């Protein structure tokens, strides 16, 4: 127990918690994208995947509980660390000039909050089907039809693309930061690990954005 409490109470331990839970969330996002890309294989493939996901409930719930735990830990570490950081400088500078801080690093809390809002909307939209009343007419696993119906609207597509851009911004700093926080950095491969953030987040975002864009432009219907 002393190990756990010390880890959570120390700034370095809390950052480690942030990094590890962040990696779990990235793992989920990668798996999620792989599933989403089945939309390009046609309605049968995507709907069969959606049905397959829900066919074995213990595994589904194990994954869900893991995911929710990672979310809670990530948010908890974020709140805890940023509150401490606010207290660490009670008197702000009259003039402050940063030299190397990226916009992504500066806005992690903001992009994180936006992503939380998006995640809740996303659940209401496609999991609980609360936002689009016309979904009631569709079959339980007709994910394909739901996507086509949703992304034909410029508002839904636009909001989705903006949210993915936010995710890209968040991961841009987050992925690079992950390696540094876990101490996987050294002079030899520092630049390589720091490319991981921009490269990985851009690839992920490109994959996610391809779907609403293709539907909106009528490439898949």
């Amino acid at each position, binding site marked *: 127990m*002393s*190990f756990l409490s*010390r*880890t959570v*109470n*120390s*700034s*370095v*331990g*809390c*950052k*480690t918690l942030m990094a590890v839970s962040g990696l779990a969330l990235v793992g989920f996002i990668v798996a999620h994208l792989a599933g989403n890309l089945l939309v390009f294989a046609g309605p049968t493939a995507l709907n069969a995947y959606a049905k397959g996901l829900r066919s074995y409930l213990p595994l589904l719930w194990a994954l869900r509980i893991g995911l929710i735990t990672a979310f809670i830990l990530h948010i908890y570490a974020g709140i805890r*660390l940023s509150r*401490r*950081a606010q*207290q*660490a*400088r*009670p*008197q*702000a*500078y*009259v*003039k*402050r*000039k*940063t*030299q*190397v*801080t*990226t916009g992504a*690093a*500066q806005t*992690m809390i903001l992009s994180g909050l936006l992503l939380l809002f998006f995640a809740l909307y996303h659940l209401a939209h496609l999991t609980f089907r609360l936002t689009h009343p016309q979904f009631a007419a569709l079959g339980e696993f007709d994910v394909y039809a739901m996507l086509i119906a949703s992304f034909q609207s410029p508002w839904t597509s636009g909001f989705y693309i903006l949210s993915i851009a936010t995710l890209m911004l968040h991961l841009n*700093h987050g992925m*690079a*930061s992950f*390696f*540094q*926080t*876990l*101490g*996987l*950095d*050294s*002079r030899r491969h*520092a630049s390589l690990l720091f490319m991981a953030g921009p490269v990985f987040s851009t690839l992920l975002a490109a994959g996610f954005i391809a779907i609403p864009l293709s539907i909106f432009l009528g490439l898949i219907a």
Partner: protein
Amino acid sequence: MRLVLHVWRQKSPEEAGAMVSYRLKEISPDMSFLEMLDILNEQLLAEEKDPVAFDHDCREGICGMCSLVINGQAHGPQSGTTTCQLHMRSFKDGDEIYIEPFRAKAFPVIRDLVTNRSSFDRIIQAGGFVSVRTGGVPDGNALPIPKTAADLAMDFAACIGCGACVAACKNASAMLFVSAKVSQLALLPQGKVERERRVLAMVGQMDQEGFGHCSNTFECEAVCPKEISVSSIARLNREYTRAALLERPSSSPTSSE
């Protein structure tokens, strides 16, 4: 050179401070920044006003005593140097210069631009002793140390403990300072005995002093007058995680505190 200075004036730790503007004439570009402040103080004394209090000692960039955030940058616009190594040729005639203390909860202002940085001393104290064999002078090379390890340890040992890393960090984090000290000792065989205890105690003290965490923005590295690399922070994280996993509660000096 003619200059307009905006200087943080604060009478005591308890009183609120504010920026006060001063005009200076006939400043030579060959003067150091601290000599320029000396001129300001001569002028203030002639007007029977309180001179501006600021920290300085060696004035050759090795003691770590001078501080100041100049135009929003710790130790001013020149990279890899301390404030005392900054010269007025880095500024232009007619420039406005903002001069503030290093700002952090763990560095309370004593007066004007002078801050109390003894929180750094307490972090060093928390690190404790390093077990060495006492007695006669040891034979040269009796303790083999790879050249690369010695060089890297020396790079980290170059830290003068000025606190610019804290001043530049958006979270007022002391991670670059602490990691430089931890890395220096973790690389050498002499410090190995206390390796786990030291990193846990120093990070514990750092948190207790009220410094923030590391957000990996690396502003600290950019302002460090000794150009300490942030790879030391990665090393500290590695050392900390390793120690947290290996350390037994009985050998922990912090558990009784």
